[in-house]
């Protein structure tokens, strides 16, 4: 693979990532909507375990995509180029937003329990992680799309 094709490939993948990040966030959030709409009605233990595992696996994959260069199957030179200075800055900003929204969610859940609302530890972690990850994904997507826009 020559240098030109590495640059073109990085550009193509970077644009694709900018388009995909908000979509991933929507898919992730829809999965949580399904989870919380059915969690009230008792489901068989095995079905619940499958749902929890699916959420956990998706969360870990998204967290890895957010905190590493991503594109794990691409050659190293493409991965290095795609994770250039502006991308790292955008990702750091997205992680900052994710952290702040996670803290906000944690405070909200904590406050809810003061009004006799029962939230299990598992649900609390689920809510905090979901909001943090979704926020970071959306923010990164917005920043990347803005960066690609010519002006």
């Amino acid at each position, binding site marked *: 693979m020559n240098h030109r094709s590495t640059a073109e490939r990085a550009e193509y993948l970077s644009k694709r990532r900018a388009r995909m990040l908000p979509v991933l966030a929507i898919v992730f959030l829809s999965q949580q909507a399904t989870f919380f709409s059915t969690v009230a009605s008792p489901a068989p233990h095995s079905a619940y375990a499958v749902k929890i595992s699916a959420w956990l696996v998706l969360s870990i994959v998204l967290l890895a995509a957010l905190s590493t260069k991503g594109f794990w199957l691409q050659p190293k030179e493409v991965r290095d*180029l795609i994770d250039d200075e502006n*991308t790292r800055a955008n990702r750091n900003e997205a992680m900052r937003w994710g952290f702040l929204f996670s803290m906000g969610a944690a405070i909200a859940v904590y406050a809810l329990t003061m009004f006799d609302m029962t939230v299990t530890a598992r649900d609390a972690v689920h809510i905090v992680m979901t909001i943090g990850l979704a926020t970071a994904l959306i923010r990164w997507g917005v920043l990347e799309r803005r960066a690609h826009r010519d002006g």
Partner: protein
Amino acid sequence: MAERLANRLKDRRTELGLTQAELAERVGVTRKTVNTVENGVFTPSATLAIKLSQALELSVEQLFWIER
């Protein structure tokens, strides 16, 4: 008063007949990064500013300045 880092990246790049992609390739970043620096959306690191000035055959001070 707010300060911002202004630049004459686009003018100089055009003078040298380079596209954003070609300049990006010379300094080892993506076209997106060059685009954001040109538009003033992103403030480059000292390393990138030096690489850009070398690629565009100007000093850093000629390429970037602080606007108040």
